[in-house]
């Protein structure tokens, strides 16, 4: 093997130990390896024969990636994934280092990587993915990506680099129209919602205002997965006349069901004839909600649900999912880079579903802006406390004997999880994972 690669692996591993000793940081070791040898990723993935799959889009990447990995592993595949949610090329390298032998090559059947739109392209510049699953395009951190059209263009470029198969959302016109741009020979599979629930799409979709060339996805074939709910919790993913299901997820809501539909359609493409519906149902039912997507912690016998919100579409879906059972609610909004620095997006969310019960606490750097937003939807706010720890303690104390729910942006969630871990002895809860 080339000497540089050995040095990269060793340097990266050393940095990883260093980072551990100082008690932090999943991105640092990746940075070291990438700096030493830019060809590192390509070499590390060169023996992965069963597929290098990139999952990207604005909402649902983490959930969908987890589901897809679970589906593939349930079918006996060895799968590398980037579980730390450190959503960047460097993060991929970090999570890869402990898996590498001295050869510097990953010894698995498949790699399934969750990457945001910009990093997916950077990754594709180093390693052409065999498959891409493109979920959706919505407003997210506009101060970084600037425009939805730009985000859509990034996905299109990624699809253009993909060598074997692309799975597209037939209900999202930003994603669906990418089909018209693909190279000949690249397989296209579609996922979407069954006609039975098409009326619920507007709550999930961004307005596409581009001129003309309105693209309509072709009629679904027996290889395309359609979500068909059975009841509130259970659903089938229908391929032609063959349902996979009924599936009941541990995570609630329409968005999670759509993610499962996307993951199932992709798994079926990757596994071909080896795909087994019964195995898929069992695998999906066992997936725990990832970090911040409706996970629940028990505090003195009462559940506290943590819900990550990061853009209008996501927050709207979360409110629709959770407010059917109103409970004591806290909302924590930060405006650091990872949260999106512009809080304008809060005005594109309709909070009127919180009116009946009100909001107990708003918190975070923009606690007052959140309270102001709620005032304009006539939602009563009991307390405003920008300090996250103080707000959390007061909220938990005031609503000690009942279920609670906490909507929060990314960095607010990180801080709150640490506090929860420290206060309530939840081992490992403060860590990502």
């Amino acid at each position: 093997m080339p000497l540089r690669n050995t040095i990269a692996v060793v340097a990266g591993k050393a940095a990883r130990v260093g980072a551990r000793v100082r008690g932090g940081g999943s991105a640092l070791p990746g940075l070291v390896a990438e700096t030493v040898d830019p060809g590192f990723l390509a070499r590390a993935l060169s023996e992965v024969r069963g597929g290098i799959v990139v999952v990207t889009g604005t909402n649902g990447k983490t959930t969908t990636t987890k589901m897809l990995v679970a589906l593939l592993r349930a079918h006996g595949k060895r799968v590398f994934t980037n579980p730390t949610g450190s959503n960047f090329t460097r993060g991929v390298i970090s999570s890869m280092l402990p898996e590498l032998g001295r050869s510097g090559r990953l010894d698995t059947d498949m790699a399934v990587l969750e990457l945001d739109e910009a990093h997916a392209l950077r990754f594709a510049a180093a390693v052409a993915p065999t498959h891409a699953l493109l979920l959706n395009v919505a407003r997210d951190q506009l101060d970084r990506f600037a425009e939805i059209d730009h985000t859509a263009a990034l996905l299109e470029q990624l699809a253009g680099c993909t060598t074997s198969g692309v799975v597209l959302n037939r209900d999202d016109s930003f994603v669906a129209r990418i089909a018209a741009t693909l190279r000949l020979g690249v397989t296209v599979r579609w996922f979407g919602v069954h006609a039975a629930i098409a009326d619920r799409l507007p709550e999930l979709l961004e307005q596409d205002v581009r001129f003309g060339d309105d693209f309509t996805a072709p009629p679904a074939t027996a290889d395309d997965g359609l979500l068909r709910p059975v009841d509130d919790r259970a659903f089938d993913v229908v391929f032609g006349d063959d349902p996979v299901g009924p599936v009941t997820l541990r995570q609630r809501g329409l968005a999670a069901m759509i993610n499962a539909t996307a993951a199932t359609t992709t798994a079926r493409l990757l596994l071909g004839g080896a795909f087994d519906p019964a195995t898929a149902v069992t695998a999906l039912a066992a997936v725990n909600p990832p970090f911040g997507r409706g996970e629940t912690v028990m505090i003195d016998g009462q559940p506290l649900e943590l819900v990550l919100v990061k853009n209008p579409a996501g927050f709207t879906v979360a409110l629709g999912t959770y407010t059917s059972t109103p409970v004591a609610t806290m909302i924590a909004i930060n405006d650091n880079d990872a949260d999106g620095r512009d809080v304008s997006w809060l005005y594109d969310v309709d909070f009127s579903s919180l009116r009946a019960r009100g909001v107990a606490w708003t918190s975070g750097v923009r606690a007052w802006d959140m309270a102001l937003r709620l005032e304009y939807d006539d939602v009563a706010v009991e307390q405003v406390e920008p300090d996250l720890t103080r707000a959390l303690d007061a909220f938990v104390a005031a609503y000690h004997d009942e279920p609670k729910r906490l909507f929060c942006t990314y960095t607010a969630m990180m801080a709150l999880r640490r506090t929860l871990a420290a206060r309530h002895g939840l081992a490992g809860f403060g860590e990502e994972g």
Partner: protein
Amino acid sequence: MPDTAPASKGTITVVHLYPREMSIYGDLGNTRCVAVRIRRHGYTPNVVQHHPGADWPADVHLVLGGGGQDSGQARVEADLVEIADRLRGLAADGVPMMMICGTYQLFGNAFVTVEGTRLPGLGILDVTTHGNAKRMIGPTVLDTEFGTVVGYENHSGSTTLSPGQKPFGVVRHGYGNNGDDRTGGARTHNVFGHYLHGPVLPANPRFADALIGYAAERATGRPFEPEELDDRTADEARTRQVRRLVG
């Protein structure tokens, strides 16, 4: 206790220009804010969403516009030409208007692309915008006649005021029109153009009420009769943001 709501002081018609194409950064929040405050001041809001190709309403008291993507802008240009004379007439007549970002640029004399192509605007504000590669992004604070105003700017065009054009405010934090001359936005008659998303009106109720006041006078022919509204939450949010950004 009165068993009926007090009589409305009058109906105020608010037109939101191109809500689908030109309201990407929470700009709909301005319309929501205005409608709620009109009601809280004892008037009746009549919000009209103006889409490309639709008829222009007969009696307009306040016009709001937001920012969009290039694709959105392209979609509204033909309609804007259609309604241009009416908008110019209303502006000259003192109708309050607030145009943010993309619509601010369209209300100027022209937008000059990086390649040098000159795209004419409505000419209601005596400003010219030059496209440039650098995006001006971040929280912003302006000193205006309505006090200190906070927002969030996100634009790639650099706007210059012609000699004699009044700015909307002076930049205390952020870029403003161009990042160089510390001017923020523009005001002519009661037409305001600027780069403050945020959205600007809920965060700055004094400015919101000034626009509503002009609109109420137009709608009723009487001076604005405001109610005393409780804006402590907005004041707290704004004061904290100002303290964070300019100390």
